[in-house]
């Protein structure tokens, strides 16, 4: 069978962050996955070594447009620990609120994208409509819809006014109602079930073995959540639960994300209602002492790790960013094996990858290495084979 190259999704209106991967397929079945990350490689890690702590935060914020707060929080948290800086409680609460709002907007976005992948545009539109409520809250609090710029080393840059808190609280009940509706839809809507159930299955052992993180791992019953296992901000002091599921497929990942939406609403409500008074930042020293730290953070997509090393100057010596998507690729590569080609978008979307709108999937047949377009004979043969299988 000649090599068939299907670069799914140049200008993909749904997926983010440029990543390209080749799918090595045997006919209709997938054998393995090959990855190319160079489309969006910018050299942020190098640039971070050349900018001081004040200037590096806006840079890290732009690692990713969806988890922008995650990257700055995990970095600021690490640097503060190296400086042995205790940041005020109010600042920690504000960071938590923004973090959970970000999780909400990311999960709503994901649900819409997953629906779009299976052509269910109505759900796509609805979730993104409800996402606007979260965006409004974030915009009121931070002044921007996507890059919030809330963090600085030593605290947060903007305080929450009582009006902002009340406006945010007023939006939550309706959002909660909508999320409940989505829970209902995901459990009952036929086309969603048909396309999500049993797709991209990952057992608990496999999830552990291949290092899946975040909702992908939790959907397989792996009970890991950096918010609980390595508590940061105020997660140790507030009531919330880790959501897990045992399905292990796309359906399970959807359920975990919707469950986390409910938890996030709970956390945000608790934090807004119990927002302590006080300072929002402390003065941070310009330089950090020599040291190294592994800073962990549960971003919407999974565990985000920054390995930071300082050398006594006002710049980091090294910051190594491990994004959740990178950690999840190995498991995606595994759960795509033996799946149908048409399920690639939804399985890939199920880990909520940060992909971009560039060529992404290339199907390469394993038997021959010849590149080219399918010939008519081939096409005939294929459709005949297909047709025989139908009968």
């Amino acid at each position, binding site marked *: 069978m000649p090599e068939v190259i299907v670069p799914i999704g140049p200008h993909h209106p749904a997926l983010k962050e440029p990543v390209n991967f080749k799918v090595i397929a045997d006919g209709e079945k997938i054998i393995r996955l090959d*990855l*190319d*990350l*160079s489309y969006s*490689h910018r*050299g942020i*890690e*190098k640039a971070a070594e050349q900018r001081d702590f004040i200037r590096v935060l806006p840079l890290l914020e732009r690692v990713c447009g969806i988890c922008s707060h995650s990257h700055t929080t995990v970095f600021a948290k690490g640097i503060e620990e190296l400086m042995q800086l205790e940041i005020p409680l109010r600042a920690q609460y504000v960071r938590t609120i923004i973090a959970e709002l970000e999780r909400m907007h990311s999960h709503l976005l994901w649900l819409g994208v997953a629906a779009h992948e299976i052509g269910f545009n109505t759900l796509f539109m609805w979730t993104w409509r409800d996402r606007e409520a979260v965006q409004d809250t974030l915009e009121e609090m931070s002044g921007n819809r996507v890059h919030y710029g809330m963090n600085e080393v030593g605290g947060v840059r903007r305080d929450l006014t009582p009006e902002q808190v009340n406006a945010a609280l007023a939006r939550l009940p309706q959002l909660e109602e909508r999320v409940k509706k989505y829970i209902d839809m995901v459990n009952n809507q036929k086309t969603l079930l048909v396309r999500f159930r049993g797709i991209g299955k990952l057992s608990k052992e496999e999830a*552990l*073995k*291949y*290092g899946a993180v975040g909702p992908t791992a939790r959907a397989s019953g792996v009970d*890991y959540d950096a918010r609980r*296992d*390595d508590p940061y901000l105020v997660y140790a002091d507030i009531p919330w639960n880790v959501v897990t599921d045992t399905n292990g497929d796309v359906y399970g990942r959807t359920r975990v994300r919707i469950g986390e939406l409910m938890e996030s609403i709970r956390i945000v409500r608790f934090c807004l209602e119990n927002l302590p008074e006080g300072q929002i930042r402390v003065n941070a020293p310009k330089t950090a002492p020599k040291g*190294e*730290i*592994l800073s*962990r953070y549960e971003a919407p997509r999974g*565990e985000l*790790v920054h*390995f930071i*090393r300082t050398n006594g100057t006002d710049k980091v*010596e*090294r910051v*190594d960013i*491990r994004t959740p998507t*990178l*950690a999840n*690729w*190995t498991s995606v590569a595994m759960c795509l094996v033996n799946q149908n080609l048409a399920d690639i978008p939804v399985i890939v979307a199920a880990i909520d990858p940060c992909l971009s709108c560039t060529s992404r999937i290339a199907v390469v047949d394993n038997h021959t290495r010849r590149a080219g377009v399918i010939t008519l004979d081939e096409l005939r043969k294929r459709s005949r084979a297909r047709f025989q299988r139908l009968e």
Partner: protein
Amino acid sequence: MIGPITLDFVKEKIQDIGTAEQVRSNRIRITTTPGHIRDAIKSVQELLSCDRLLTISAADNGKTLELIYHLTGPHRMIISLALELPRDAPEAPTTSDILPPSGIYERQIHDLFGILFQGRSDLKKIILNEDWPENEYPLRKDWTPAPDTFYGGIKGEKV
């Protein structure tokens, strides 16, 4: 499942592999050598029940290149296995067969630092573009773009 991991417990288990020190309440750093890293990972997996790899960090400290494997398990203790490699011929054995997730990190580190992982045949470019010149590793401290080298992009137009 084993009990809470303490420094003494770790020291006892890995005494012939390297030296351990507690660097944070939940992190123990073990300094080892490239020759021991596979054994170290195996024993950390078996004796300390670390079932997941957080990440492999690479760093250039000016004199040597460092690789740090961060593993954790149900006990929530992070075990960091650090090793140093010489700058002129940085080579380490691959761990992708015993730790499947490390495959992708190894390719990335190979691109950015030029560390060769013995036993990997598929260390092709993953994070730098296909026109990137060989033997240029951007995250090394002494690397700066050479003015006349073509790094990719569009030929003929200097941007």
